[in-house]
């Protein structure tokens, strides 16, 4: 081998230095996402096929929880057990879209901790671009998302709601929301991996949060709940995503612009945090 070839060999230096440049980290992170895409795809294929191979109803399990939750509320409302403010679109559709979007939001938030924990075996043994795990989680959420969207599409057709142009905003809004919550999930994941308190707390917090977000009912015109919901940024997200699907006007344009900036900023932080913290977490997982 000539000297020229030697120079070409990729050189890795591992040291205890804490000094890093954010630009370099971001560049490495992007490179990581890019180079590990095939691995992520392969692992996603592995997880999805193995999950469905050992099941008779397969993808039905993806929509069942959402459907059940919605059915309970549809029953409560239609039987007159509870009295809710009237919705502009048929109530079943309102609830179904609400609970679906909510479930995606929950999946995104839990995903980083879940995927990292689920792949401890390879993290502590094999050196690969850890960004693959985030892509892996994203693909799996995306797969479930397609199934859920199929269900929603079915109900939209059933209730004969004709979407307007605003539907083109549905995917950008949804992706932005997913990006935001995945970023938050990544930022809390280092601590969440070390202490399982966080992954236990998330479902409880989500449950509580759902009732102060217009998932199952609209924002009331006045009163305490109206104040709480208007302070809750999730209200704007859920409402507008639902609006794009159901031919309703976008209510909070300014909010979305602001949300876009925050999300971009958060996702950069998440990339840096993830890259810096993975070796430290690996050490504590295998120690």
């Amino acid at each position, binding site marked *: *081998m000539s000297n020229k070839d*030697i120079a070409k*060999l*990729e*050189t*890795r*230096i*591992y*040291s*205890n230095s*804490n*000094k*890093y440049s954010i630009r370099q980290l971001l560049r490495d992170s992007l490179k990581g996402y890019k180079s590990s895409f*095939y*691995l992520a795809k*392969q*692992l996603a*294929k*592995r*997880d999805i*096929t*193995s999950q469905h*191979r*050992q099941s008779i109803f397969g993808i039905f399990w993806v929509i069942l929880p959402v459907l059940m939750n919605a059915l309970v509320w549809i029953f409560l409302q239609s039987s007159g057990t509870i009295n809710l403010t009237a919705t502009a679109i048929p109530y079943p559709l309102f609830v179904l879209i609400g609970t679906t979007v909510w479930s995606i939001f929950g999946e995104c938030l839990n995903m980083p901790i879940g995927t990292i924990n689920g792949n401890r*075996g*390879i*993290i*502590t*043994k*094999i*050196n*690969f671009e850890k960004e693959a795990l985030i892509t892996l989680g994203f693909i799996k959420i995306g797969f479930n998302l397609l199934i859920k969207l199929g269900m929603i599409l079915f109900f939209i057709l059933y209730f004969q709601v004709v979407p307007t142009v605003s539907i083109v905003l549905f995917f950008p809004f949804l992706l932005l929301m997913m990006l935001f919550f995945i970023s938050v999930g990544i930022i809390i994941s*280092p*601590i969440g991996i*070390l*202490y399982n308190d966080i992954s236990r707390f998330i479902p409880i917090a989500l449950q509580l949060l759902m009732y102060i977000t217009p998932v199952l009912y609209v924002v009331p015109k006045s009163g305490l709940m109206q104040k709480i919901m208007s302070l809750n940024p999730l209200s704007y997200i859920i409402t507008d995503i639902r609006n794009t699907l159901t031919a309703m006007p976008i209510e909070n344009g300014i909010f979305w612009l602001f949300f876009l900036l925050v999300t971009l900023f958060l996702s950069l932080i998440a990339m*840096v*945090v993830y890259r*810096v*913290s993975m*070796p*430290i*977490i*690996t*050490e*504590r997982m*295998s*120690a």
Partner: protein
Amino acid sequence: MKGEVLIKAENVSKKFAKSLKKSLYYGVLDLISGITGKDQNKTIREDEFWAVKDISFEVRRGECLGLIGHNGAGKSTLLKMLNGLIGPDEGTITIKGKIGALIELGAGFNPILTGRENIYNNAAVIGFSKQEIEAKFEAIIAFSELEEFIDMPVQNYSSGMKVRLGFAIAAQMEPDVLIIDEVLAVGDLGFVLKCFKQIDKLIPNTAIIFVSHSMPMISRICSQVILLERGRVDFQGIDVAKGVNKYYGKFTNNTQSILLDDKVIEDFEFKIEADKNTINWNDDFKFTISFVNLKLTKMPYFSISLFDKENKPIALMYYKEKSILIEKRKYLLDFCHKKMQLSRGVYSINVTVNQSFNNNIIYRINNVQQLFVDSEIEDLPTFLLETYLTKLN
């Protein structure tokens, strides 16, 4: 010509915490200092110890470094740092080229999926691209010799079969640096031999770090060794035999165990006629056996065998059986083996007392004595046979 240095470690150290609570707490502190870019606390904190301390070495292309030491000496921690899984707390590791690691075979396997599907999973995890996998797919199946079972779920594979498939995939790597941890222990002999043939093929173009508890394998492959003891270097150098013998020296077991006693004889004693049981190479090996006869009428046969440090039987001290009538009293027998040509090291002696050669065991004792052979030549094979150059043509 010497190859270029591919692996370089300079004063590498790593600390671990003994308690989980502390470990997690320190993890949080390290996370904070890591993210904020502040200097980490480099000293030992409460409950911490150095799992690896001040290790330095270089491995060139074509060389193999053996890491030995008993369990918990820090070998795996060092490997994890070399593999880039965890960062060192002190020092620097520089690695050039593509790294291949045989640390965990079959990582990423899913038990429900078939062997065929899992080849893609594992190959992707260890860094193959899709094209590479497809190009090597047939070679992988052929190497694993699992054609018949390749479409069966991996959960029905035996552990040996999983290792076969895992190694077959990993063997297709063409790394510059190869890290091998004790992974081949489960395969059957035929497959282990096949694996070593594959590793032999890689050696000339690769810098290898090899961890094993099998000293014959270490001495077969390695060009230098590091013996670790509590995270520190106990021996380091190119004299592999010396390092291996030092490793063996850590496990001297000198407890006798009587496995069988028919109460036909008593007060059995075995003595080596040498100071501290140590003889020089090519000396005569003299020993005595004494016993008190209780029930025998004929002199029994003493089957004396020597075992090496790996507890492998290496020799039987054979003598011609003589038919001698005996009384009920104490007997003392002298034995001699002329020119003991075992190589330097420790050998343990097992004795079986038979009524006649290879027949009717009446007494059996393991590790009755340990024989130390001293020699100027430090060598690994069991025998150092005196040979003469007789003619030059």
